[in-house]
């Protein structure tokens, strides 16, 4: 197998340029693929599974990194074939690093877990982290560098970037040189940028991420004179107010915040105390779903509401907590601006009553004034230093508009930029539409792009260098609290490629500098202690560099500036529709759009897959005459997007949400192509929510509305009065702890319950702390080799995920209660599936598992029919027939890859159980703690797993709670998976009508 990048590049080049060639690629498939039915076309199958024929496969040729990497637990000097090893590394997203442990089998990574030692993870790994491993093996990743259209190697590109070749273009002082990066907190990047700045003093680095509005930094600079970031200690907070802030799932530190929040939310007995969450938001987010009180307001209306809350708090706490000038700048009561007076008053009273133990957090997309109001509220409530602390923003050049994208575009348009180096991200796709970035790029003579794919940006750049995925790279990063961690690769680069650091070193005239060496050089100077080698090994092994958490900064208020910012009020909000552009829970900002696991993961709230939709409240939709599935044109001042409409109970009125990250065009990412609508077309610089939206129904010839089928995994959201997902308020729980008793207790049976010695596996899922974030779903997919079926498969009802999060709405449709219930195989002691299988393919193990014997299954599907929970999945086709060579590498070798015609379902991660039991048997000890993949990934620790005979364990303790119940208890299936009913903590003083439960 030749590794000639030139040869490969020409093929891919042709593939990009000529649709016919790509059609021919698709037609080269073997005969079986030609037999796919309508809808699941060969094309989409190709796209879906990323098979690339013209590019010769890797053939399993992966290597360990040349440099030394260290496993998390190094008690074994050699690696044992068949046993995985965990290596610590970290993944950077949104500029911040989250520490991870990556399980590696036979030298290739197969599964991502959280790093219990890292403050941003504490053992949990979210949707993005779990899904990122598939991106490593994406066969559509770019494989070779190029200059112009000609494939080339790194030396040529490095030569192009070297000072000798670059200086004539940009000037000796680098006047014409610009670097565009994503926001970064990496010490290595900071160091190298500094050195580039020394070499080219007039060069400028710019930072852009569509999800990073910089508004919070602007607020911080206005309030404190420097870019400070608040860090919240949810574990100490009794009352939390989230102003359009999805802190449980949408922030870089969300895994940590979710854990801390859940620790205060979880109760073990009715007499325990739990926190209370108030949320104000335009849409319906995961955080809003678990809120005790939720107020729906347009994003543009959050500011007046925040002001009203601040006024209310000041009125109760007394004016002395803030300087009088500021207090008056906040404004006096204007009833016209506070339609939810009762709600706000009750909220303010609650906050004031818990002063010092509250948190007010403002969402990223809210304007600076709202962030300012949040800072003021925290100050007024005495939270600073207790539940809220400030650190210097770890992100480079935070709060400096001269380093933003508009400044760069202006320079480019003005002709001042002669060479632009773009480090990852996808600005040509994700830049605000009003900046016309494509035109600006055309004015720059030399453009270089470092990226994972030949995407929209790559095509606009003259030179392309393939980037390294973090799992094959040496780098470092900082978490939200400043904790630094190293990134160590788990395998040698699959396709060649470079990291940011190496590209910057080329700019400095060191094309051969390896990232490993650069990293070591940097940290040699920073790791404390005389034994660098030991400290380095420790850092690699633990995945955290001890003592690097940023110190607290006491904020020095600039009251004068604060007052003037507050007084500068915008014009009265006009009524009418607004559009809110959201981060997507699955593809983030679009960078994961080529990841089929993430495309097929149902959105936590809407349960939509493979695309986005315009989310409307039923009232707004009725008002506009829109029905679900209609294609609507969202028009804002000339910017238009056409997208299908989806009616979401609980969504705010007069607000349309649209997730970013879809509508990718033709390019190297075939899976992402054409999926969903491109919301970036509505993005204008500065903000991500805008008023003045006009929604019109797209109609075809003849006037009938155009429609599009949305692939959703759950079409019915009513519980139909069935006691399946149960929830009660805290005071009801205290009055009547046995409120779930109807779904609990003994069921009359002719048969004896099974005798159980030894390990008897069981699980408890706490619905009070499950946010529905769906990290567990991706974790299960990764651990158990679950295939992807594509959009048509989801439309046909054939999604394969073993674990699903059922999302029910209860109560009034305008502002319903949201119940999330993870549903998986219940491992019933009296399993209905077992006695109907004609060939004994599903059996019960002595330790309580309902087992599935794939080799014996002939696929009658009677077991699925008899399963009342409908958790069994069937391989309708051979979903693994044509996956690319590299995609094979992500498969977990401990788990069978199922063929066509067999049923499959959750096995309680039996491979992990058996591994632990075997290890225990060898050691002659009791079985060590086993953690299922879903349990391990969950940030709120809502899933508890263990043995019923392990008295004193978490499992046994939680199963003893009075709010425990079984789903469909009356059927007598005696499931081993039990639920703890959700408990909410509504404020008794809250009026019933406005928002809330």
């Amino acid at each position, binding site marked *: 197998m030749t590794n000639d990048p030139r040869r490969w590049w020409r093929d891919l080049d042709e593939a990009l340029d000529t649709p016919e060639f790509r059609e021919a690629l698709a037609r080269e498939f073997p005969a079986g693929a030609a037999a796919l039915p309508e809808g699941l076309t060969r094309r989409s199958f190709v796209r879906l599974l990323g098979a690339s024929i013209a590019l010769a496969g890797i053939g399993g040729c992966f290597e360990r990194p040349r440099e030394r990497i260290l496993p998390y637990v190094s008690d074994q000097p050699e690696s044992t074939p068949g046993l995985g090893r965990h290596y610590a590394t970290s993944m950077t997203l949104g500029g911040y690093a989250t520490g991870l442990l990556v399980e590696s089998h036979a030298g290739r990574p197969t599964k991502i877990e959280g790093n219990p030692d890292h403050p941003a993870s504490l053992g949990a790994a979210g949707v993005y982290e779990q899904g990122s491993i598939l991106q490593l093996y994406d066969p559509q990743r770019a494989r070779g560098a190029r200059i112009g259209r000609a494939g080339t190697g790194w030396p040529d590109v490095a030569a192009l970037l070297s000072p000798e070749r670059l200086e004539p273009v940009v000037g000796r002082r680098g006047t014409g040189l610009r670097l565009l990066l994503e926001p970064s907190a990496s010490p290595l990047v900071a160091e190298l940028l500094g050195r580039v700045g020394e070499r080219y003093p007039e060069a400028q680095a710019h930072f852009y991420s569509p999800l990073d509005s910089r508004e919070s930094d602007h607020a911080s600079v206005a309030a404190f004179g420097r870019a400070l970031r608040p860090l919240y200690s949810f574990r100490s907070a009794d009352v939390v107010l989230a102003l359009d802030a999805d802190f449980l799932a949408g922030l870089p530190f969300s895994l940590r915040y979710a854990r801390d929040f859940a620790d205060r939310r979880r109760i073990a007995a009715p007499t325990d105390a739990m926190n209370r969450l108030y949320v104000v938001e335009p849409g319906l987010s995961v955080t809003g779903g678990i809120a005790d009180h939720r107020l729906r307001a347009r994003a543009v209306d959050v500011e007046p509401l925040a002001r009203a809350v601040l006024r209310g708090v000041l009125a109760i706490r007394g004016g002395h907590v803030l300087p009088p000038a500021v207090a008056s700048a906040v404004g006096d009561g204007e009833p016209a601006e506070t339609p939810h007076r009762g709600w706000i008053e009750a909220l303010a009273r609650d906050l004031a009553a818990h002063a010092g133990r509250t948190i007010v957090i403002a969402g990223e997309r809210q304007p600076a004034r709202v962030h300012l109001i949040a800072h003021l509220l925290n100050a007024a409530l005495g939270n600073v230093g207790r539940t809220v602390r400030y650190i210097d923003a770890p992100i480079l050049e935070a709060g400096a508009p001269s380093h933003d994208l508009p400044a760069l575009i202006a320079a480019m348009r003005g002709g001042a930029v002669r060479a632009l180096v773009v480090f990852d991200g996808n600005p040509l796709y994700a830049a605000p539409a009003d900046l016309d970035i494509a035109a600006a790029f055309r004015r720059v003579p030399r453009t270089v792009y470092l990226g994972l794919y030949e995407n929209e940006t790559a095509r606009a750049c003259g030179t392309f260098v393939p980037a390294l995925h973090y799992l094959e790279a040496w780098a470092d990063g900082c978490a939200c609290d400043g904790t630094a961690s190293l990134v160590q690769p788990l395998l040698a680069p699959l396709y060649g490629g470079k990291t940011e650091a190496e590209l910057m070193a080329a700019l400095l005239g060191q094309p051969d500098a390896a990232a490993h060496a650069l990293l070591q050089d940097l940290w040699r100077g920073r790791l404390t202690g005389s034994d660098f080698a030991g400290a380095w090994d420790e850092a690699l092994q633990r995945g955290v560099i001890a003592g690097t958490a940023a110190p607290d900064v006491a904020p020095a208020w600039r009251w004068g500036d604060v007052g003037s910012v507050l007084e500068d009020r915008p014009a009265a909000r006009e009524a009418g529709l607004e559009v809110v552009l959201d981060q997507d829970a699955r593809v983030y900002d679009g960078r994961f759009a080529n990841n089929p696991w993430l495309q097929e993961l149902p959105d936590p709230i809407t349960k939509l897959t493979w695309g986005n939709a315009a989310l409307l409240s039923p009232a707004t939709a009725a008002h506009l005459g829109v029905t679900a599935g209609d294609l609507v044109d969202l028009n804002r001042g000339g910017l238009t997007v056409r997208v299908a409409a989806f009616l979401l109970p609980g969504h705010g009125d007069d607000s349309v949400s649209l997730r970013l990250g879809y509508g990718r065009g033709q390019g190297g990412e075939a899976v992402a192509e054409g999926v969903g609508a491109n919301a970036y077309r509505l993005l204008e610089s500065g903000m991500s929510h805008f008023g003045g939206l006009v929604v019109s129904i797209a109609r075809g010839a003849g006037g009938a509305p155009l429609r599009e089928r949305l692939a959703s995994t759950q079409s019915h959201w009513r519980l139909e009065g069935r006691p399946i997902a149960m929830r009660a308020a805290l005071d009801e729980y205290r009055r009547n702890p046995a409120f779930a008793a109807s779904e609990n207790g003994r069921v009359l049976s002719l048969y004896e319950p099974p005798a159980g010695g030894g390990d008897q596996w069981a699980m408890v899922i706490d619905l009070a702390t499950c946010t529905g974030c769906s990290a567990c779903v991706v974790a299960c997919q990764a651990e158990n080799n679950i295939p992807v079926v594509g959009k048509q498969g989801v439309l046909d009802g054939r999604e394969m995920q073993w674990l699903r999060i059922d999302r029910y709405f209860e109560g009034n449709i305008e502002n319903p209660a949201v119940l999330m219930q993870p549903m998986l195989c219940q491992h019933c002691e009296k399993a209905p599936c077992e006695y109907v299988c004609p060939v004994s393919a599903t059996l019960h193990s002595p330790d309580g598992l309902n087992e599935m014997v794939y080799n014996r299954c002939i696929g009658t599907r*009677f077991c699925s029919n008899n399963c009342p929970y409908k958790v069994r999945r069937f391989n309708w086709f051979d979903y693994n027939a044509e996956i690319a060579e590299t995609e094979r590498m992500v498969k977990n070798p401990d788990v069978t890859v199922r063929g066509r015609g067999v049923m499959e379902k959750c096995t309680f991660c039996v491979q992990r159980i058996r591994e632990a039991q075997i290890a225990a048997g060898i050691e002659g000890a009791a079985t060590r703690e086993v953690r299922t993949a879903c349990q391990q990934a969950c940030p709120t620790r809502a899933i508890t797993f263990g043995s019923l005979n392990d008295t004193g364990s978490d499992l046994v303790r939680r199963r003893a709670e009075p709010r425990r119940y079984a789903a469909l208890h009356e059927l007598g299936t005696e499931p081993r998976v039990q639920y703890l009913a959700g408990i909410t903590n509504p404020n008794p003083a809250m009026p019933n009508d406005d928002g809330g439960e």
Partner: protein
Amino acid sequence: MTTVASSGSVQFTDRLLAPAWTPSRVWRVLFAVSGAGTLGLVAAIAYTVSTGIGVWGNNIPVAWAYAIINFVWWIGIGHAGTFISAFLLLFHQRWRSSVNRVAEAMTLFALVNAGLFPLLHLGRPWFFYWLIPYPSRMGVWPQFKSALPWDAAAVATYFTVSLLFWYLGLVPDLAAARDRAPGRTRRRVYGVFALGWRGSGRQWHQYRVAYLILAGLAAPLVISVHSIVSLDFAISQLPGWHSTIFPPYFVVGAIYSGFAMVLLLVIPLRRVFRLEDIIAERHLDNMAKLLLAMAWMLIYSYIVETFMAWYSGNAYERYTYLIDRPFGPYGWIFWGMLTANVVVPQLFWWRRMRVSPPVLFVASLLILAGMWTERFIIIVTSLNRGFLPSSWHFYAPTWVDWSILFGSVAFFFLLFFLFLRFVPMVAISELRAQRHDADTAAAPEVAAP
């Protein structure tokens, strides 16, 4: 050699044997059409087996759909043949003789069709033999608590007994064909299949005994086979499936649809082959009365099912029977089913309706379609909306599903047209015996059979 018979008897025999060696253009056309349909069936089956069950419309939760509907429908249809052969024989209903050959043939061909589906609907059909209790090297037997191995046993038994029964009854007629056929080749072929029947008294006596024994074996099968097929559903715990009335409900429905099929076949047959005197008005009348009786037993089953669902107070049962089936996404199919199964047979209270071949023909078509939709309603609505509303999902068939259904109908007719072409289509020996008895009764001095 046959006993000396009056020339009237010989003419009678010749007349009934004539279709077997009279070429017919109409037959060729019909055969070609059903042949084409059968090829379509084969293609659809090949496509399914090579690519996967995913080419059908099935999904989770609706994991069973057209294949099982077709299976139950075809087996049900087959029951009429056995009912006519066995039950009516044991109850000395002599009018059965005019239609029992056609009915028994229909049963066999319906069973052949039905037998396709349990194999075809498997995800891995090449392992179908694991349903059969053979001493395997893996040391694993079928799991006998499940109804599917019972199905395998029941259908296999039913097919065997039906085949033997049909064939035994055919033997004297094949002998007559052997004796009367023009052309040596024909006589040779019929001679082989006639198994050396001489028509001696001893042979007739053995024949009678064997026939009665087989009837005795086959009669309980009418009850048991479809009861077992109904247990495929009744042993589960789905609302709409696990109802104790299923065994008699299904048996009744089976006989009902089977008689409709017999009528459907017999009415054109008697016209084309001019058998109106053999398959007379009173035969049609009797079959229509049976249809009406079965319809009322079916109506009783519907009422009991629905009443019990309501009476139980169980929320899931009530939802399935009182809300989902009549008013859910398949409500229009439900009401169509009731029209065909409940309203249409009420026509047969009137004798004029019972003996009118066009009315009977159309009614039979509607009843057959109605019984198919009944299985659809039972299977699909219980699966599509189960216990957890989060798992509810719509089901729609694909073109492969339709191809297999219509292809199986074409295959059935292919076999039936072959039967018409080569095999005596009425029970000649029985009819002659009846005529002889009638003559003897008129003229007592002539010897007994």
